[in-house]
């Protein structure tokens, strides 16, 4: 195991993040504050509570998940796409590093950034709403698994993308809608029965539900199923990445 290389990749990626720290910090704070103003205060004041939780607090887990998922995907996909785009990938391919080490370095850095942003949002939320976290351990575990698995997904997108449009395509067309329709701002039980059934096909529902359970001890789906869902998603991403490196798909001729 070339730990020096993992460290080098990780630190190099983190340096990019620190260069733009203010942007990385300010934009989630502003967007979260906006959500709280619009949904929490303006609309939320007309909604009494959802499953015994004030609406302002109810949307916090969904908001964190929304940002973590999009940030993890965006960071990881850009992280590996950029070297491909400017050609510096030659160095990775000619270095004594295994594909596993490359993934650990890039995905680790992307997951760290997403985690940082998740924590910033959580911190911001505390300014707007009072809330208790029912299962702190489970909350941290869910957050970490989400950061990690969506960074894996981002890595796959970054390898697959052949231009900047494709890089944006999946986050914009798939992830954002799935998160919005995955119960970030509502409980699945609030939907008509037909839509409840349809929602069960949305994998993000399980993740948000599990995360919300960690906060408020209430969930749309049993926590065990949520856990299975995220484990399955992570395993699927790992399998795809294993295949990518086995075949050198779009990185090696």
């Amino acid at each position, binding site marked *: 195991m070339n730990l020096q*290389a993992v460290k*080098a990749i990780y630190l*190099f990626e983190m340096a990019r993040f620190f*260069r733009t720290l203010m942007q990385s910090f300010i934009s989630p704070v502003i967007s979260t504050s906006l959500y709280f103003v619009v949904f929490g205060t303006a609309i939320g004041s007309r909604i009494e509570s959802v499953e015994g939780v004030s609406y302002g607090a109810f949307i916090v887990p969904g908001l964190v998940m929304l940002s973590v998922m999009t940030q993890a995907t965006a960071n990881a996909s850009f992280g590996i796409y950029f070297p491909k785009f400017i050609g*510096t990938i*030659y*160095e*990775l*391919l000619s270095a004594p590093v*295994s594909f596993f080490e490359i993934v650990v370095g890039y995905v680790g850095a992307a997951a760290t950034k997403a985690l940082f942003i998740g924590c910033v949002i959580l911190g911001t939320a505390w300014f707007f709403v009072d809330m208790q976290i029912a299962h702190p351990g489970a909350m941290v575990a869910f957050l970490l698994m989400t950061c990690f698995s969506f960074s894996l997904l981002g890595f796959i997108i970054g390898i697959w993308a052949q231009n900047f449009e494709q890089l944006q395509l999946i986050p914009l067309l798939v992830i954002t809608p799935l998160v919005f329709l995955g119960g970030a701002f509502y409980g699945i039980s609030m939907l008509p029965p037909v839509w409840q059934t349809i929602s069960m096909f949305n994998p993000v529902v399980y993740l948000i539900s599990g995360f919300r359970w960690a906060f408020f001890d209430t969930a749309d789906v049993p926590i065990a199923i949520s856990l299975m869902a995220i484990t399955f998603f992570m395993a699927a991403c790992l399998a795809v990445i294993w295949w990518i490196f086995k075949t050198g798909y779009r990185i090696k001729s």
Partner: protein
Amino acid sequence: MTAIVSVQQLEKTYEGGFEALKKVSLDIEEGEILALLGPNGAGKTTLISTICGMVSPTGGHVKVGGYDIIDEFRETRRLIGLVPQEINLEPFERVLNTVRFSRGLFGKPRNDARIEQILRQLSLWDKKDARIMELSGGMKRRVLIAKALSHDPRVLFLDEPTAGVDVELRKDMWEIVRGLKKDGVTIILTTHYIEEAEAIADRVGVISGGEILLVKEKDALMSQMGRKELSIELQTPIDAIPPALKTYDLSLAKEGRVVIYSYDTGAERTGITQLLGDLAQAGLVLKDVSTHQSSLEDIFVGLVEDAR
């Protein structure tokens, strides 16, 4: 001399069916400078990229320092530094950071003293905090070399290091390469500038159409294959070579005013003395005599054309 890089029957056929390397075999000796000469699309970059790990071979084997490039890729890649043809650098990154990154990537612990030494050697120390995008083209190339040297490789591949570089900078680059050779680094460079191979290589390999046409000591190649031409200008033009001189390899040029005699500088007897005597005997009056030594370029063009 022992071969530090040994290429055996290496083949690469790209997905579209293009055969970039056709059973290439080549031994590179430790401490030498080998110039791989070939026209565009000859397979130079594919050969280098395969040895370095960016391209998967479809047949054959390569050993570097006795290790197999696929089964023991960690060992072989630690021994190799690569300077790519394109200037592939992250524009926003600073010189020192990018070189440090390369060293870490190749598994070496951070060593700022060594990095400083490399940057100084390449006259980049003043620019260590500059962003890549602020550097001139020549400096960027030197940053690529610094990155390739950051982990102290024993073999350095330079893929067209002077493509699109002005004369001054090219000579600069040659000095750097000579300096590295002195440090004991084995250097393989690809080029299509014959002048470059002539100036710095110990051995020259000619590659064309995915095949190695020959690999020879540069000096031996020059003297063995170097033809010399003797141009004899005549007082009065002639229509044809006189029958008495048919035994010589002669041709007429400039409307019969010049007789050209080709001879081999490596041969024991050049036959010049006898030819001059026979010319006089045939009644030809000489006006002037000059010789021309064929360059590596002529040899190269001849070889590549023969191969077609």
